[in-house]
């Protein structure tokens, strides 16, 4: 890898959104990246993750956000996405109790498939809809406490806390990560191949 190549960012982080289908993962992602809800979005060949560069503490961080939307039921297939993710957001829908109950299952899957130092984050989405709410903020907080995860409620629809989730997560990663975060994502192909080649790496890259 060419270390001297000039970059317009200081670090690259790979983030991943998981959670039951229909909790609004792709909306959250689209809202964050495009900063407007429901742009005419085209699934273009060649773009599998959305990229947004943000600035934190004077550092330019390039975020690659991956989404498993629509593939939730393919259990093994989606775990391929977990490789090399430095931050994982588990999303549930506050208007859907089932999706809240699934959080523990997702947490377990993440623990088994992601690298040990990946930073997790719990998000209760659709908090703007107080009429159909089934999961209270308190319940969300309690679960987050139990699992030891940071927690926020967001609304992709109104934009509440969308940026906060991604900024907060990035800050947490930077705090705990130090300087060794650069490698993954700079060139994912090399990263994955290397990961496979010495699979004894035990999930860290």
């Amino acid at each position, binding site marked *: 890898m060419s270390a001297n190549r000039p970059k317009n960012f200081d670090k690259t982080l790979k983030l991943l959104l998981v959670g039951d289908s*229909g909790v609004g993962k*792709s909306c959250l992602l689209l809202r964050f990246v495009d900063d407007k809800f429901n742009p005419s979005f085209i699934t273009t060949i060649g773009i599998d993750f959305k990229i947004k560069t943000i600035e934190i503490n004077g550092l330019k961080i390039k975020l690659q956000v991956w989404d498993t939307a629509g593939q939730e039921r393919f259990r093994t*297939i989606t775990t*391929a996405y977990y490789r090399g993710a430095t931050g994982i957001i588990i999303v549930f829908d506050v208007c859907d109790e089932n999706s809240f109950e699934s959080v523990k299952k997702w947490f377990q899957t993440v623990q*088994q498939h992601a690298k040990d130092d990946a930073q997790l984050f719990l998000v209760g989405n659709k908090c703007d809809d107080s009429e159909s709410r089934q999961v209270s903020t308190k319940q969300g907080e309690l679960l987050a406490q139990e699992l030891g995860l940071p927690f926020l409620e967001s609304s992709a629809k109104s934009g509440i806390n969308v940026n906060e989730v991604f900024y907060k997560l990035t800050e947490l990663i930077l705090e705990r990560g130090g300087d060794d975060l650069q490698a993954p994502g700079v060139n994912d192909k090399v990263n*994955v191949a290397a990961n496979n*080649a010495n699979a004894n790496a035990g999930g860290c890259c």
Partner: protein
Amino acid sequence: MLMDHWVKGSINNQYASVDTQTLIESWWNASQESWKILNEDLALLNFNGLEIAKQLTLIESKMFCSIKAEELLNQNFTTKKLHLNLSPNIQRSVLFTNLLSDYVIESILQPKLNVKQRVHALKCWLKVAISCLYLRNFNSLASIMTSLQSFLISRIAKIWDDLPQKYKDLFHYLSSIIHPEKNYHVYRSKLKEYLDSNLDEDLDIPIVPYLSLFLQDLTFVVDGNPNYRTNTKSFLEQRLINIDKYFKITRIISDLQSLQVAYKDIGELGNVYNNARTDLVRSTTIKKLKSQVGDVDNDMTFADMFDIHGVPCLQELILLEVWKVKQVNAKEEDRSWKLSCQIQPRDE
């Protein structure tokens, strides 16, 4: 094992071949039940890899070709709508994908194997996977390869250390085909070739695409686009139907439909599946391919694209075997993770 509970009519202690469709239905029904499995030995890898791939392809193709357009509409295939049973054929395909993946993992991690046997199982799956690629069965290819790349297996150093370089290269090659990088760029461009040949050149070559990606694309288009948009050109601020969204949905579904070409089963029960259309499509396509390539003497190469020798008893075994792993996994929560940790404890 399941006796006449499995397939009605094949009793009297005599084996009778059953067609794929009936097998799939029996397998689906048996999968909804809970059984206690005493014999946990897995038998599939005793067979030739290409042969397994051929039968996998016939099973998967049958499932894929049965998918109806309405199953793909309105997110009918999502977990939320499962109880409405609006997507029966997608559900069968999803279940098969998951069970095949679980089977691959179980066959490598199952207890009582030594490292050599685990490496052998890994090699066998690579052979099955490359045969699937040869047969254009991308769905089985994805199920196998994502399982092999799963952390449950990739974390076990011993297995990979003992894998010969030749197989490591094969593993990397096969992993690169259906890889999420750049929105599955490698796979999508391959798929596009087949789509173009089906749509533009009127060549209908049977393939089994990676179904999961169609579902993901549909989800993004449905979730990411509004149903209505406001008419900015008019002062009345009427709502207009966002027709672009529905064009996109239609496009994805019609792509899927244009890929629903059946393989020709030249096996024992071939006459059960091959209808006049299969034959017509096959002969037209082969004729066109010949005229494109010019004068060729071996039309076998082209016929090979269509013809698979179906072996009903092996298909039956495949369905029974993956079903068995489902039962074993249902009995013990997180079985594969535990197995993986037994072979190599977590902090090693």
